[in-house]
């Protein structure tokens, strides 16, 4: 039971915490990589968040809030990583596994690239917002709590982020259309 592990970790059981780490680290790392768009910095941020979680877990008031609490630690660690090296920006191009049952793998790949480019144009806070709201399906209030922001601020930021995504996707689509036309 995850709650049992959390309670044991709160009591100082390192093995229980390690088990929690093994269960959550993939998702935490993936989230950090989405926000930072850099595997090395994502690994650093994940490790920082886990260390902070072990250091402060005794002060966690509600064991059921462990998931969201670690997520918030990770988001803060990502923000710190982003602040540390704003100049170092190299983006990862991931290898996508194409499902052979998909009608047109080339179209799927192109579409994914477009979304990825638009996503990369967002800043770290906007990416964290997208992950929390669209991947974890968190309502606005919970998203705001995870980001440590007022609900109104999250609402307006989400609106601007989606607008920016749409603008990037539209611009990318127009550029592809023009390239195809003049090819």
């Amino acid at each position, binding site marked *: 039971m995850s709650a049992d592990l959390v309670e044991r970790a709160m009591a100082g059981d390192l093995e229980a915490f390690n088990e929690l780490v093994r269960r959550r680290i993939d998702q935490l790392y993936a989230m950090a990589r989405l926000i930072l768009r850099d595997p090395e910095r994502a*690994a650093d941020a*994940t490790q920082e968040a886990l260390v902070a979680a072990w250091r402060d877990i005794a002060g966690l008031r509600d064991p059921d809030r462990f998931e969201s609490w670690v997520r918030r630690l990770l988001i803060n660690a990502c923000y710190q990583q982003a602040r540390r090296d704003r100049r170092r920006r190299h983006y990862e191009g991931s290898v996508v596994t194409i499902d052979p049952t998909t009608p047109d793998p080339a179209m799927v790949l192109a579409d994914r690239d477009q979304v990825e480019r638009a996503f990369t144009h967002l800043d770290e806070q906007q990416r964290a917002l997208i992950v929390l709201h669209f991947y974890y399906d968190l309502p606005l209030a919970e998203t705001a709590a995870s980001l440590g922001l007022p609900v109104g601020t999250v609402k307006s930021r989400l609106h601007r982020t989606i607008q920016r995504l749409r603008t990037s996707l539209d611009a990318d689509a127009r550029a592809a259309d023009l390239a195809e036309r003049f090819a």
Partner: protein
Amino acid sequence: MIAPPDLQRRLSAFLDDEMSVAAPERLVSDALTATARTVRRPAWRIPERWIPMPVTLRLAIVPRALIYLLILSILLAMLAAGGLVVGSLQRAVSPAPPTGVARNGLIAYSDLGDIWLVDERGEQRQQLTSGPDMDFTGAWSPDGTTLAYWSIVGYDGDPANESQRWSQGTSGNKLALRLISIDDPEPRTLASVSSTPYQAGQRFRLVTSTAIHRLRASCARGGWARSATAQHRRP
């Protein structure tokens, strides 16, 4: 804010794909090693230690004028209490002497502008003061040897005119405090005041170096000062 369905679908596909990435093995081992070396912070505790410190209480709501009024009331109450204590001490030290009985048991009274002595049976009537001044009853000293009394110097013999002049402040006469001893019937003037308009209850306080003779003059409305009392007190 709801994203358009098309964008939401494409975004979800991208996020699902990205979130399926596994963490490197090295990260898992590094994270476990780092947490093993990290010292945990203690849990939240309710502070139980009381730190002594000076605290100044300020009444922010009470207006300053009210505070001044309160302080003034306290001071006045203290003064009144002090006066009561001093007054009771004086009375205890020097009880009020018999005002009408001399050492030899005679009673002083005023009649026809002079002071007379008489025994309790109304006999042995003898005149203590004489002369044109109007003398009226005072009080005996504690040892019963000396009488302090009022005397209007320059009295013309008409009580009605004199009363009117005194109440209007037009009398040229003086009101004198005099002492006379039963052993030496020569009056001695301690102090005197000029004619001024006075009212009922007005106090004349004449102080000498040997004793305080406190006399209270009273009069009926628009009439003559019908009685006066003198009280001997030790300084």
